[in-house]
């Protein structure tokens, strides 16, 4: 430690040695950067590029400028693409209603956060829907909704309330699928809150109790603020989950009846990759619009994370 105190030693060290501190983090980052740019960043720009072309995925691309966006958004003398409009509003429905998973997850987590015999079993049972595949969830719910044999209609029939064909009715089908999606999503939020509840400081609860706080006041002013990190994560995963809602739609209604349950990601898939699709340009234009919607959320999340870190400092 004390021996190489004189300056010439520095020049003896290699270039890497001299810059070790600055370079090492980049060395560790290189694999990540390489893969991220090849598999994420480049495809994003390629999609932008393709969206300005007419292309069937096989032959030559024809440049069409912003024609696809004009058709999609109804710029100029044409109407907005109806399928796009329906998909967009369905996406909004998903975003808003999917957030119900957060309070429901919180409620179940509070309910399960007690010490009784076999609580671990109950917890795992509640977590179960998140473990099974979305495809299975979709199938189970579509059987549940079946117009004649389904359990839902058996129950309705028992109470003489007539029958419902939820997935066959264009006004209800999307809500039916969202309800199916809420089942696993609630379980996810519940797990996040359960781990969050473990970290709640018992002393603060004790102190609040001495001050006479109980019931919903205790929850609102003492418990919830401590669960803020869990809420944030639950919010993020739920929003992303809502925007990624694809498998349930594909399994339960295949976008129908008459395209009323399409969302943007499903429409994009239909246009570009499905059996009757391969209109890569138009599909890419939809993907680009979806990307910018997601970007809005991502920027918001990053901003609030950055703000939080700044406050913590």
């Amino acid at each position: 430690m004390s021996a190489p105190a004189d300056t010439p030693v520095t020049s003896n060290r290699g270039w890497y040695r001299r810059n070790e501190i600055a370079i090492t983090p980049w060395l560790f980052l290189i694999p990540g950067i390489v893969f991220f740019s090849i598999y994420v960043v480049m495809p994003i720009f390629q999609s932008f590029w393709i969206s300005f072309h007419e292309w069937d995925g096989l032959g030559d691309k024809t440049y069409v400028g912003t024609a696809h966006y004009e058709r999609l958004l109804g710029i100029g003398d044409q109407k907005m693409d109806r399928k796009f409009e329906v998909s967009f509003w369905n996406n909004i429905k998903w975003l808003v209603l999917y957030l119900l998973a957060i309070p429901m997850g919180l409620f179940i987590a509070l309910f399960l956060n007690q010490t009784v015999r076999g609580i671990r079993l109950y917890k795992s049972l509640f977590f179960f829907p998140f473990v099974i595949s979305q495809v299975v969830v979709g199938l189970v719910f579509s059987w549940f909704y079946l117009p004649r044999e389904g359990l839902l209609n058996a129950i309705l029939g028992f109470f003489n309330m007539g029958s419902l064909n939820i997935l066959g009715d264009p006004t209800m089908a999307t809500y039916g699928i969202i309800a199916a999606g809420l089942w696993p999503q609630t379980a996810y939020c519940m797990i996040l809150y359960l781990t969050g509840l473990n970290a709640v400081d018992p002393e603060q609860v004790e102190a609040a109790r001495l001050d006479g706080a109980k019931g919903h006041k205790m929850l609102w002013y003492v418990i919830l603020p401590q669960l803020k990190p869990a809420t944030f994560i639950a919010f993020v995963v739920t929003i992303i989950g809502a925007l990624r809602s694809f498998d349930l739609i594909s399994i339960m209604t295949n976008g129908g009846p008459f395209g009323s349950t399409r969302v943007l990601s499903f429409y994009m898939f239909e246009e570009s990759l499905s059996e009757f699709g391969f209109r890569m340009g138009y599909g890419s234009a939809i993907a680009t619009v979806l990307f910018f919607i997601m970007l809005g959320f991502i920027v918001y999340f990053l901003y609030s994370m950055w703000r939080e870190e700044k406050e913590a400092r």
Partner: protein
Amino acid sequence: MRSIIKASVATLTATTILAGAAFADGHAKLSGELNITSDMSNPAPRAVMERLAAQFDEKHPNLTVNLTVVDREAWKTQIRNSLSANAPDVVNWYAANRMGPYVSAGLFEDISDVWAEPAFEALASTKGAMTIDGKQWGVPYTYYQWGIYYREDIFKELGLSEPATFDEEMANCAKIVESGRKCYTIGSKFLWTAGGWFDYMNMRTNGFDFHMELAQGSVEWTDERVRETFSNWRKLIDMGAFVDDHQNYSWQEALPFMVKGEATAYLMGNFAVAPLREAGLTDDQLGFYQFPLIADVPQGEDAPTDTFHIPSGAMNKDAAREFLRFVTSEAVQSDINGNELGQLPVNSASSVADDKFITKGFDMLSNNAKGGVAQFFDRDFPAEMASAGMEGLQEFMVFPDNLDDILARLEETRARVYK
């Protein structure tokens, strides 16, 4: 120098003669490997394909046949990658417009030379479906009829006979509905079944030629004649002829209605017979009739054709061509369609299976399809028009009042798709 040229010319002539001789005796000395990628993944067709590959392999001792069977649904999207990179020598696909994208991208081999051979005159009836721009791009290996499969026992019970006209059809249907049943089962979740109904309603109302003009985009969807088709169709919808909630079911899920006798008929392709028999219906209970006449026009029929093609990137095109000759030959056609496939042979010299439905279908297509033979809604119409169209047809079947809106939408699509 001179001698070299001479020698090579001599060799060339020799090779040509040799090839010609080999060609003439029909057992070309094929060698190397023949890679076949097939979408015949259902149990029965798979057995057929495996047998074909084995037989062809045996016939040509120097040739190794490698068969890859891909899931039929997955193949519909996989074919693109498969054709462009490392293409196999023979692939399965479909006739008519469905070949279009691959033909125009130059991914299918032009095999007009094979079609010019005298042996292919026996395939004349399907030549049109394999032709784009005056050239042939593949060969068919099987096709099947569409028509109305019905419960003969229920018809007898109600005292009904097979209808020949639309009025008789509706009179029958009125009695069936009165007996507490539905006239037709259908599952329109995956849309194409509604396409079958439209094909027939339109071909019977306006004729085959008009239907093809519509498919080629030269008629507007808002045309009065198209509206007439829909108004005929609506007569059936309004009398409650179709099962309820059909938008929830796939075509297989709609079969039980017919098996249980809750619905009496099914407009379907001949492939529906196998599951109906498996579900316990005997040939006495199950009947078949041609879609009844509406207007006085020659009948057009749907008879989708499945095909083999040679990718233009194939390595062993000689062997591939020989394989196409092999599958379309009289003996092979009688064998595969008569046994496992249970469908119609494309070779007119082949024998037709001794099966009630196949003989009826064969008779119908040979003698009673004067209008012409169509492939199917989703194969005759271009992809984008077909998907928008079938979605509109499904909507019409559930909400017939939305017709104006649907037609306006389809017309908008038509104006964009055909340029």
